[in-house]
């Protein structure tokens, strides 16, 4: 008999203001409820030691993870800096900056079947590819049943 435990990579969004918790809310609106998913909203008046303690406590509260990815909003911002510090002392904690909704969705959809480094690469590429604009001329395409190649615009 095998009494294995399924591990789920933990995801924590840490941002200025309520961006993180709002992104999580949006992601769960689209994907439904998710395990091992949390947000920490950094209020301007909070001290860094408080943020640090909050992060440690959320990381410790996540069960059965093989690793944690902290998604922060801004490279060099306090959420990023504190996460980075924790990551240096804790090799199973990884930090990404520039979180957006396409990134959060990708990470949640792929975390059951990607090793953590690959998951981070997917997060970044989906985050980046999720940004764009459709030129008005391309709005009038009349072909039916074509694969819409988003890179065309």
């Amino acid at each position, binding site marked *: 008999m095998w009494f294995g435990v399924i591990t789920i990579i933990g995801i924590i969004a840490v941002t200025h203001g309520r961006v993180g918790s709002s992104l999580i809310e949006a992601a769960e*609106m*689209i*994907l*439904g*409820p*998710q395990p091992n998913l949390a947000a920490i909203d950094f209020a301007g008046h909070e001290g860094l030691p408080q943020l640090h303690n909050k992060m440690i406590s959320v990381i410790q509260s996540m069960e059965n993870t093989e690793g944690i990815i902290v998604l922060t909003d801004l490279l060099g911002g306090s959420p990023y800096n504190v996460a980075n510090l924790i990551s240096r002392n804790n090799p199973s904690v990884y930090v990404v900056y520039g979180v957006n909704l396409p990134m959060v*969705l990708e990470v949640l*959809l792929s975390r059951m079947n990607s090793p953590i480094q690959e998951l981070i690469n997917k997060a970044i590429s989906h985050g980046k590819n999720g940004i764009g604009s*459709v030129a008005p001329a391309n*709005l*009038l*395409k009349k072909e*039916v*049943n*074509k*694969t*819409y*190649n*988003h890179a065309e615009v």
Partner: protein
Amino acid sequence: MKICLARVDERLIHGQVAVAWARITGSDQLIVVSDEAAQDEMQKILLEMATPAGVKLLILPVKEAASKLKSRDLPGNNVILVFKKPEDVLYLVKEGVQIPVLNIGGMYFKPNRTQFKKALFLSEADIETLKELSSLGVKLEYQVSPMNDKEDVLMIIKS
């Protein structure tokens, strides 16, 4: 051609369908069945844009969908059928199209509707349509996203 999901969703293709359901089912073909969408150029364009990369989109009026589904004359391997309203599903089933399970994922507020669940607002007429579908052997499941629990719609409307 295999129908991996048949869903009633008033918003047709949006986050839950484009991202969650398309990915989880591994679908390569979305087919929207709706007279309204088929006749509206703007809607068609918006639906095209919402369709994820690598997935094809076909928008069909209801009668055409019925005949093409019966003759299996449709593209795609793993198809998601999306309907705006349950009446259109009923039409297809009465025409002989096989739909064993119908996912109800998004029916929203309208003045004559009662709310049963977060994304399930039904009028008396809607309830009759759903009961008729059920009597024709279609299993009705309320499930907004793949990670939400499935709930039996008949149980929901009886309570």
